[in-house]
């Protein structure tokens, strides 16, 4: 699947650091780009959230946890972070946690998502 611009943001190669707190890694990865989505390739809701950002003209950075050797740990960490399952999709904007699909949609409807994206530099007028 493609955004209008062609490809998914930029797929960052995961570092070779096998030792480390998964949550720490998540936070580090999240801060490296304006919009970061943690996803699972077969998850349809993840596909929906990707389409949402693409539809808005945003190029999110997507990490497919099922394609990451430490994905399982990160998934568990995310579940603890969110307090609910499933762990994915989960969105970080400007390094800060926004939440899962329901939070993202709610913020889009109440008009807080676009300013946040603009602030993070993911969206230009």
């Amino acid at each position: 699947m493609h955004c209008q611009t062609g490809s998914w943001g930029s797929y960052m190669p995961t570092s070779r650091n096998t030792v480390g707190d998964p949550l720490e890694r998540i936070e580090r990865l999240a801060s490296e780009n304006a919009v970061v989505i943690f996803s699972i390739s077969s998850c349809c809701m993840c596909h929906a959230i990707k389409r949402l950002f693409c539809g808005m003209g945003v190029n999110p950075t997507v990490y497919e946890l099922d394609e990451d050797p430490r994905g399982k740990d990160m998934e568990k960490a995310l579940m603890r972070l969110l307090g609910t399952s499933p762990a994915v999709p989960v969105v970080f904007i400007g390094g800060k946690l926004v939440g899962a699909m329901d939070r993202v949609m709610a913020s889009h409807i109440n008009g807080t998502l676009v300013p946040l994206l603009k602030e993070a530099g993911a969206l230009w007028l």
Partner: protein
Amino acid sequence: MNQCFWLENGLKNKSCMANHRVGETGLTDSGPSSHHHHHIPYAVLHGMNVPASFIHQEGSAFDFGELEEAIVLQGVKIRNDEAQAPLFTTGRPAATLEMFPSWPMRFQQIEIGSSKSGGESTDSGSAVNTLSSKTENQLEPESPVSKKASSSDHQAFDQKPMQQQLLEMASDISRTGTSQNQSAAKPPQEKRRGSTSEKQLDAKTLRRLAQNREAARKSRLRKKAYVQQLESSRIKLTQLEQDLQRARSEGLFLGGCAGAVGNISSGAATFDMEYARWLEDDQRHMLELRTGLQAQLSDSDLRTIVDSYISHYDEIFRLKGMAAKSDIFHLITGMWTTPAERCFLWMGGFRPSELIKMLISQLEPLTEQQVIGIYRLQHSSQQAEEALTQGHEQLQQSLIDTIAGGPVFDGMQQMAVALGKLANLEGFVRQADNLRQQTLHQLPRILTTRQAARCFLMIGEYYARLRALSSVWISRPRETLISDDHSCQTTTDLQMVQPSQNHFSNF
């Protein structure tokens, strides 16, 4: 003679269904065909105190007093002329008994014939008996009805044919003597004395015959009641089947009867009931909004009403969330809604952007800020809807791939995978409901309190009309039972639909 006495008493007795001992039986003509004896007037069989007991045992609503009077006034002259026979058979009793075609018409002729064998008194008695039995036949079908209905209408109906019949006989039959007229006026008591002598004749046989007649009469009554019951049950069953068929095809579920129609899960049935209750609440809320707007309430009071309406919607989304866990297909296929609503269904409910579009055209002049806010809301909800739709499509495609299986269908393994994917449906419906809820919450943030109140009233009324449209559509006149030429049916349908379209003009 004493013909009228017999007639009167016979008629009185006919009214008392419970009156077994007393001689209604003597006046029935349903006796076995083997009976060739002359009729003995019933009073003779049962002794002196019959007349009094007649009066006391009057159990029917039928007013025999009136009939008696009518008969006496018309001066019925009873005779034993055999020429009467055709008359007796022409004035058949009420339609109900005619449903038994096996009713032997010849019974009456036999009885009339046998009446000849007796003496003068017996002749007249039997003639009267047949007359009385005729009227009894006429009365018989009516009296259970009149007992139940006990309305004057029934009585009038009962009396008339009999009176006509009696008139007929009176006009056609030659008189045997004026003494018969006079005897009509005599009190019953007197007449009985004259005929007690006949009691000794074949008492045992007579008693047996009377019992036979009584038994036959009772069995006739039972049969008639049973058949009537069957008929009404059959009609009821047909109607129920039609209603069931119609409800099934239209898929219209009412909260109260959910679970009775088709295979509906308990979760679905529960939700349907809760939804029905929610619809009732919705009406109350709308009334509150309407009166609040008309009464020009203060903004804070109106705000309370608006907030309560939002909570009302929060409630249905909460209920839908629970229902999604137990029966997602019930929600996503919209079986809980009406057909017209189902037509516009998106992910198990209304499409928020459509709702906003509907509202935009009806909201009073908005400020520039409000216009921007509303269009932004519509736009963002459209984007969200699009995203969810695409995610849902991917789920469907993935499911298709799993079920198709590729070169080798792994059976259980693939079923398990497919099941897992199906479970994701719940998530999409939940997100769709979340989107609806957020949209409704956003409206009062953009609009003034008054505008928001009007807005929610419009939403409530819109869906109420949509539901009403479904009802009107379902109950529109159609060709049902009689299936004629198909082209005729279509024409009639079109013609019949025309008037119902006028309903819409009110909207």
